[in-house]
């Protein structure tokens, strides 16, 4: 039998019910607790990465004033900041955090398909973070090779953390991939097999589509990173030469011979580029739902949005070498990857148009989640357009390894997903806690973050055009960079410190509101999707009480003409819709079984 509603499996649910504090909050198999564990660890490790970035900015902005980090710890900060933010913060928070919380609720399920595997996933993820963090405390410190970990420089003396640091990084990544695979199998199987009665794939909110496709990307892309990590560990620990060429270190030839560093780059970026979309697609989904709910309009072009998510997911596997233009490649190869890179802009632009058209003539409610969601549209367009520059070989070559690149990827996959994460955290906070956050504090948080990030990254484009190279501890004196560039650097640092400090507002808000926020009620935004229709807020273990919901419509019935409210929840049958002009009637529908 293909599908058995979990509600019919009483013994199963009884088995999973927590019986002690430890099984409820530590070794919990409840997807909601696991989501909060994932989110908590990801945000904590993200704060570490944020602090590292501020240390770097202090050095860059005021190189003679502060003596916080030396060149080695600067490179270590660059590396750890990048890797933590991309993998351990964004990926874990968007898929492990939001995926875990929202998939079962939006699918009308009681939990993930494999709750035990889900629990293992979060604790193996915690283990990967512990391994990574332990590299701060070993001899030589963490690796300073840059988050791309390119050999041979990664493993050679002169690169900080070339001994234990890089080993711990690779080990941690391998453990993370195991954790992700356990979680990912759960997400895809739950979406496919555990949707409730009536919930077709095309009735799923775009959040679920984004997370679903991103998970598939992750399941297919992370193996490339795993393979390269294993081979590099072999090179370091067993002396093989998969990637290591014949090389002389401090006048002494090393034992390696004939390896291919370019092979590593191909493997790394075969993972690395889909990774951008592993982060972006869930963010696209989340922001679509936030925009639609607060604009009181159905998402514009739902089918196109789904197709675009799938198209972007597919195309993301054939663009990887645009990260390697300066590594040298056959011109036709460069032409191919430039073309695919520009093609992927088409479905991406389509999504942007649809977000804007969702806002068009909407009954927009400008509350904090909406601020962040609209802010995302700005930063994403901005970062996307600079991506068109860098996707072209001839423009990429002079701009490669300059601050233009730093500005581009921070706008498109740093600031943009983070704005969506804040939008989503504020949007779903009432469901998770049963309380409202402080609106004024959240809006102050938005304005400082949004304007601050522009103050940080807009000038970086200009620095890039000047040719200021990235990953330099100090510039020294050069002919082509005017002294005034340093003033810009100082201004960027001040903006970064302000934005960094402003994040305290977010933490104060979410912790203060836990006790002092107004009770939110079950559905404060008037949202149509299923997670807002739970009998309890916050949802209890098992989510749905005695009976699973039945779905009668898609997740975007907002401002339906004739309806007495401006939204109709997914689990409301047509018979209970007080509409005069409803065109569609389903003769199979049995209203007596409705559980609105």
């Amino acid at each position, binding site marked *: 039998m293909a*599908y058995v509603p979990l509600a019919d499996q009483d013994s199963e649910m009884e088995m999973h019910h927590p019986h002690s504090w430890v099984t409820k909050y530590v070794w919990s198999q409840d997807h909601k607790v696991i989501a909060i564990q994932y989110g908590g660890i990801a945000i904590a490790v993200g704060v570490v990465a944020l602090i590292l970035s501020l240390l770097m900015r202090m050095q860059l902005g005021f190189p003679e004033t502060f003596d916080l980090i030396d060149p080695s710890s600067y490179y270590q900060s660059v590396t750890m900041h990048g890797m933590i933010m991309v993998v351990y913060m964004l990926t874990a928070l968007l898929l492990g955090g939001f995926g875990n919380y929202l998939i079962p609720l939006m699918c009308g399920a009681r939990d993930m398909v*494999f709750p035990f595997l889900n629990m293992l996933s979060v604790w193996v993820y915690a283990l990967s973070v512990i391994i990574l963090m332990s590299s701060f405390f070993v001899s030589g410190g963490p690796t300073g090779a840059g988050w791309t970990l390119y050999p041979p420089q990664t493993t050679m003396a002169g690169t900080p953390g070339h001994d234990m640091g890089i080993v711990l990084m690779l080990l941690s990544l391998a453990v993370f991939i195991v954790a992700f695979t356990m979680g990912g199998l759960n997400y895809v199987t739950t979406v496919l097999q555990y949707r409730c009665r009536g919930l077709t794939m095309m009735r799923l909110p775009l959040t679920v589509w984004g997370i679903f496709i991103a998970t598939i990307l992750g399941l297919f892309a992370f193996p*490339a990173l795993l393979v390269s990590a294993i081979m590099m560990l072999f090179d370091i620990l067993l002396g093989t030469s998969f990637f290591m060429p014949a090389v002389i270190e401090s006048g002494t030839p090393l034992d390696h011979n004939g390896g*291919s560093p370019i092979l590593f780059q191909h493997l790394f970026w075969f993972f690395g580029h889909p990774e951008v979309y592993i982060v972006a697609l869930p963010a696209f989904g989340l922001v679509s739902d936030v925009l639609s709910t607060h604009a009181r309009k159905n998402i514009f072009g739902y089918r196109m949005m789904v197709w675009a998510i799938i198209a972007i997911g597919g195309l993301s596997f054939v663009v990887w070498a645009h990260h390697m233009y300066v590594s040298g490649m056959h011109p036709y190869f460069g032409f191919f990857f430039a073309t695919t890179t520009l093609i992927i802009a088409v479905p991406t632009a389509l999504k942007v148009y649809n977000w804007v058209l969702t806002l068009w003539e909407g009954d927009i409610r400008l509350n904090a989640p909406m601020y962040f969601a609209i802010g995302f549209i700005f930063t994403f367009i901005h970062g996307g357009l600079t991506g068109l520059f860098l996707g072209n070989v001839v423009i990429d070559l002079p701009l490669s390894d300059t601050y233009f690149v730093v500005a581009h990827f921070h706008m498109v996959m740093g600031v943009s997903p983070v704005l969506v994460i804040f939008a989503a955290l504020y949007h779903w906070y009432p469901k998770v806690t049963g309380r409202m956050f402080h609106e004024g504090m959240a809006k102050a948080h938005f304005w400082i973050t949004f304007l601050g990030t522009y103050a940080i990254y807009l000038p970086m484009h200009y620095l890039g055009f000047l040719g200021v190279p990235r990953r330099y501890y100090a510039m020294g004196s050069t002919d082509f960079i005017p002294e005034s560039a340093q003033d810009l650097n100082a201004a960027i640092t001040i903006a970064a410190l302000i934005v960094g400090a402003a994040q305290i507002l977010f933490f104060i808000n979410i912790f203060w509101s836990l006790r002092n926020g107004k009770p939110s009620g079950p559905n404060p935004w008037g949202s149509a999707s299923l997670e807002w229709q739970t009998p309890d807020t916050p949802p209890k273990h098992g989510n749905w009480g005695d009976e699973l919901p039945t779905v*009668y419509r898609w997740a975007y019935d907002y401002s339906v003409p004739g309806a007495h409210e401006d939204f109709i929840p997914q689990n409301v049958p047509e018979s209970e819709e007080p509409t005069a002009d409803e065109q*569609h009637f*389903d003769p199979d529908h049995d209203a007596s079984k409705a559980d609105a």
Partner: protein
Amino acid sequence: MSLIKTLTEKPWERKGVIGGLNPEGAFESPPERVALGFFLTIASVIFSMFGVSYVIRMSLPDWEPLAEPSQLWLNTGLLAISSILFQWARNIANAGKQKNLMTAFIGGGVFALLFIAGQMVIWENLQATGFYVASNPANSFFYLLTGLHIAHLLGGLWVWSKSSIRLISGSKPEDVRLSIELCTLYWHFLLIVWLVIFAILSNT
């Protein structure tokens, strides 16, 4: 499910309960088998990545082909027998019978253990004759690919051991039928992967 039909549905037009207890788009399989399908795809990607790396690395000038030991043929036979025994166990369980089930299922795992032992013997012999892991990239890949394949088998043996304990402790065939089926699928997959690895190693 028809993918195109699913993706071209207009959800704003269709109202009411669609699909009954089986929501459209769900596979007609237990979730465990769907998850295993995804896992096998992931494992295929991993092995393919190593395969691509092998081909690229092989084209570089320092590559010295390794003369594969003939014992690999014997080991391949052991793994094939293991796979056949699992299939036999699956057939018995699907028919709802008990006779020979334990012999077939446990025998399948034992032959997989023999295969692993055989691979270890090859490693020992290679080491003894000076073919170390770092001596040449061909050697490195030999150890890496065979090791990775063994690692996957060990994962399968962990599930096999749990199911075997259930069988020995008196579980009915229908209670372990799914486990047996999934183990069988996994073993067939690993046999195919091994045959591909063996073919690549032998011909390069």
